């Protein structure tokens, strides 16, 4: 590799601030991620973890700051990002089956107004096979257990064939076998050079699963290798309590404008 060739960060976040009804949810987040890592995002409830993921993708507009994906704004590189949303974000009674949901991951590649091809279906089948859900391909999605639904979402993200994956609490409400299966797939993706950011809810397994951790509590408490940041002091700061003064002042500022 050329010495002058800099490795482009899959994700760069600068001074990101997001508010909700004038109340700060994220405040001044700075991040730069290196490729080929499995990164966990952890923090207490309401810390802004989901908000961070959504703000990165532009689903939520920040009040200040910017985000770059592989060096460009999100819209230009959205095809290089795969997304696994939270399960409750979707209406599970929608008349669609497992295969159709996974095929949706291919729509970005298929393009506007065109039909998915046989090759797209093959990719979708492969992804379903990877998550062991191929036998359920024709089942309506409401007829699945929580773990199975999560695996379908993962298959859809795999079908996107992205370089950066953003996952919002993929392990919530999932049985142990599914959890192991999912983490194996994530590790396999990492070994192929993909970058994964995963919002995670459980501290104990976070230490075991992730190479690096982002500790979030409205502001960035720490970001680095797990063994470096997973210390009692850092955890205490992350989980110890909200910065209420900062929160109230920023809210008052927003309301005065």
């Amino acid at each position, binding site marked *: 590799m050329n010495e002058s060739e800099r490795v482009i960060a899959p994700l760069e976040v600068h001074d990101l601030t997001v508010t909700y009804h004038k109340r700060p949810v994220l405040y001044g987040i700075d991040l730069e991620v290196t490729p080929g890592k499995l990164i966990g995002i952890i923090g207490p409830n309401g810390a802004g973890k989901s908000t961070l993921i959504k703000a990165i993708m532009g689903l939520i507009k920040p009040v200040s700051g910017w985000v770059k994906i592989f060096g460009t704004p999100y819209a230009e590189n959205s095809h290089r990002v795969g997304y696994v949303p939270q399960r409750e974000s979707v209406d599970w009674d929608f*008349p*669609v089956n497992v295969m*159709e949901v996974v095929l*949706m991951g291919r*729509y970005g590649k298929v393009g506007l107004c065109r039909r998915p091809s046989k090759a797209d279906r093959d990719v979708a089948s492969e992804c379903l096979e990877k998550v062991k859900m191929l036998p359920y391909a024709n089942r*309506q999605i409401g007829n699945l257990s929580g773990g199975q639904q999560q695996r379908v979402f993962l298959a859809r993200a795999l079908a996107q064939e992205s370089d950066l994956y953003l996952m919002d609490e993929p392990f919530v409400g999932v049985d142990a076998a599914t959890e192991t299966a999912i983490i194996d797939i994530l590790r396999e993706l990492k070994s192929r050079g993909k970058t994964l950011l995963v919002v995670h809810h459980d501290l104990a397994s976070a230490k075991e699963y992730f190479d690096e951790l982002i500790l979030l509590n409205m502001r960035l408490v720490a970001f680095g290798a797990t063994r470096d940041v997973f210390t009692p002091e850092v955890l205490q700061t992350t989980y110890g309590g909200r910065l209420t003064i900062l929160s109230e002042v920023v809210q008052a500022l927003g309301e005065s404008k």
Partner: protein
Amino acid sequence: MGSCVGTARRVTGAVTVWLLMAPVAYAARISEISDTSTLDRALRFFSFSDPSLRYALAGSILLGICCGLMGAFLVVRKLALMGDALSHAVLPGVALGFLWNLTRDPLAIFVGAVAAGLLGAGTVQLIRQTTRHKEDAALGFVLASFYAVGICLFTMIQNLPGGNRSGLDKFMFGQAAAMGPQDVMLLAAVTLLAVGAIVLFYKELKITSFDPGFARSTGLGVQFFHYGLMLLLAFAIVASLQAVGVVLVSAMLVIPAAAAYLLTDRFGIMLLLAALFGLGSGAIGAFLSFVGRSLPTGPLMVLAATTVFVLALLFGPRHGIVARWWRQTSRSARVRRENTLKAIYQVLEASAFATDQVTVKDLADRRRETIEEIEHQVAKLKRHGLATLSSTGDAACLTPAGWQRACEIVRNHRLWELYLTNAARMAPDHVHDDAEEIEHILGEANVQALERRLNYSRKDPHGKMIPGIEDIHAGRAASRDTDRATGFGGNS
């Protein structure tokens, strides 16, 4: 389900309107002729010789398809209330369109109505974004206030000197008979536009309806498709106003689609069914209006659609009420049969499988039921090929199939009890009732997993033998005291 309540509301509304407004709706009848019999009129309908009938029928069919398709999106996007509000909000626009030239100029009315619809939608957004109100209150406000303005304008129009008397009633309840070629062409254009948009952007519409967050993340313009759909909806509503009327057009949007939603798990099929039901309801409404002499079309179409909905609700193959009741009844019958089989096994076991016959009396004692009930049960087992009755009628014997099922049930029951006592650490006297239910639904995969987990134990918590796979196939059972197989119909 919220849309079920909404549909019920619409159905009640339809019937009430029809009953209360019959005299006013008299003006909306399709045919003027009063002297022929019903059969004659039915035949005349199918000869399609009446030009006004041809336009009315064509318009009703197109409207049905168009509203059915748009309605499918309203149902899955949970926007049925929005459709209702929009359809009422267009009334002042219709009135203003009237006032433009003081004639029934379809273009002016169309433009006015669409403008009013957009204004209404914009007002809803404004209220949501600047106040504490949520969408339902905002929609309720817009629906009622715009509608009231529309009524006032219409009343004013009717009182104008030389003002058209043909204003209020026809746009309220629909007058399919008054549809001319221009109205039908407008409907055809809107239907074509809707079908074209759906065919072209099918997968985009599907993904933005199902998971807008994910769709946004792929770079798809979710807002564009939302506003596009709303605009198409406005067109469909305005084009349909002539035939169905302001009050009931939302019913034609929602009810055919709601019926389709009950019948399929595939969105594409749902769209087709919604269009089909809409088409059918429109045609039937037109037909009934022509055959009956002073019947209004709008409410008739809606009642046809309602009938389809009720049929789907009752008889839908998967989720229908009748289907569910049938499945439940079959299940109870199966459980009853299996309990009898189990009792036969237990009686056989009590005598260490010395014979392969059980007396009806012993069975009655074990099941604590009367002789008649047992005889009834054994007759049912006989009908399913699971047992035979002796010639004297007082003893029963299991067939190989019955033996297999009896062993499976007993095995399931005892395995489950063992599992609960060992793995879940429940007291042995607590596990019986649970096992009584679980034994009927334990699948083969779970049974194998349980056997592995319990290291292929042969005894349950009460010391009884658990029938194994060899026993089932060889038609034998391990006896209580030894491991040696004895008993039923077999080779030793």
